[in-house]
Structure formats: structure tokens, C-alpha cells
């Protein structure tokens, strides 16, 4: 299991290849990557991500442990960045390794759903016209109900 909360960019190709290469008995590897998306009406200059050092790592580890047990994973990885990012930059990634693809896909979705509303990160968008904290969405909270 690998959990990292970091400011610096990560190399998606290298991290994915390294993760996928380490599991001979796992037939399915799923990776998901989140990217800073530009805003259609009010161009985004930057996104600032704040987090709660200590709790963040603990929360991510707890989620990954749950995913490992629930979907019989061979391994799980979560990388999440904080600090100032610009559109097009990768914010975070999850990777899951399971014997079969269904568990690997489901575990990745489970991790993403929990990460959205249970990991202590807060996004702030800075545009030409101003800056504001991103509000949480009801649908993100609702998404947890299916698990």
C-alpha cells in the first residue's frame, strides 16, 4: 500500500508502471487520475489545495485499508497533491490491483467517492474575476450511500 500527500508533481507513467509491475498474482490494475479542469466561462488561473497535515494521511490510509479488505485487493495506491496547481496539471491518482477487473474498478471508484468528501482537502479557485472556495456537492455525499 502506498499513500502520498505531496506538493510536487508525480510521473503518472512511472508510478503506474511501477505499481503494475509489482504484482504477478494480480490480473487487473486500474488507475484513475484527476486533472485540474479549466472553467468554461471564467478562465481558471490556478487552483489552491489546502489540507490537514496528519489527518489527511491517516484518512487516506484508512480508506485504502478499507478498500483492500472489501475488494480483496493485492495492493492500493493514493497520491494527492496540495498547493498551487494550474489547469491541466494532475491533482491526484489512485491505483488498485486485484485478481479480476471488477474488484479493481470498484475499489478505484470506492476510493474516489471517499476521497471526494472524507479526505480533508479544500480547493480554492482563482480566476481573473476573483477567488473562491469550491463548495462540496450533494451528489458527492450521496455517492457514499452506495457503499
Amino acid at each position: 500500500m502506498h499513500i502520498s500527500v505531496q506538493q510536487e508533481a508525480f510521473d503518472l507513467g512511472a508510478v503506474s508502471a511501477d505499481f503494475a509491475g509489482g504484482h504477478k498474482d494480480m490480473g487487473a490494475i486500474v488507475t484513475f487520475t484527476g486533472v485540474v479542469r479549466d472553467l468554461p466561462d471564467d478562465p481558471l488561473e490556478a487552483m489552491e489545495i489546502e489540507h490537514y497535515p496528519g489527518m489527511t494521511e491517516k484518512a487516506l490510509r484508512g480508506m485504502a485499508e478499507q478498500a483492500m479488505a472489501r475488494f480483496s485487493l493485492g495492493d492500493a495506491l493514493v497520491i494527492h497533491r496540495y498547493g498551487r496547481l494550474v489547469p491541466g496539471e494532475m491533482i491526484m491518482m489512485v491505483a488498485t490491483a486485484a485478481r479480476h477487473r471488477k474488484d479493481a474498478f470498484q475499489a478505484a471508484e470506492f476510493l474516489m467517492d471517499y476521497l471526494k468528501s472524507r479526505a480533508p482537502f479544500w480547493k480554492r479557485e482563482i480566476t481573473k474575476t476573483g477567488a473562491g472556495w469550491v463548495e462540496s456537492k450533494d451528489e458527492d455525499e450521496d455517492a457514499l450511500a452506495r457503499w
Partner: protein
Amino acid sequence: MDILYFAWVRERIGVPREQIDTAAATVADLVAELRAREERYDIAFSDLSSLRVAVDQELVDFDAPLAGVREVAFFPPMTGG
């Protein structure tokens, strides 16, 4: 006890963390105590439905007890991912 604030809660209160002596039995009691202190707290805590709280780095409800707790953090709903 260390009290931490994040995102717009930090901005409204004006500091990221502070240390306070309190006899509050629950998070809700602590909130009431802070609100009575100064207007900036009163404003920040005016709508608890828009706030989340963690006690010793675990998410809890506002009725959670504070006995033996070292750290309480207040923040808006999280927006990770």
C-alpha cells in the same frame, strides 16, 4: 487544547490554530463558548450545517465528547479528489 481552522473557517477566524483552556464537555459546548467570545467566531459558527469537525484527527458529530482530547479542527465540507 489545540483548535485548528481550515479553508474559509480559518479566513473568518483569522488564525490557522490557537491554544485554549476550556472545560467544555462536548464539541457543541466548545462552539458555544467560542461564539460567546467574539463576533468573528459567532459569524464563523453561525451555520453548523456548513461545518465539519474532527477530534484528534477523526471526523465526529458536534455532540462528541472532549474528555482527553488534544486537538479539535473545524472546517467546511471537504472537496478532495
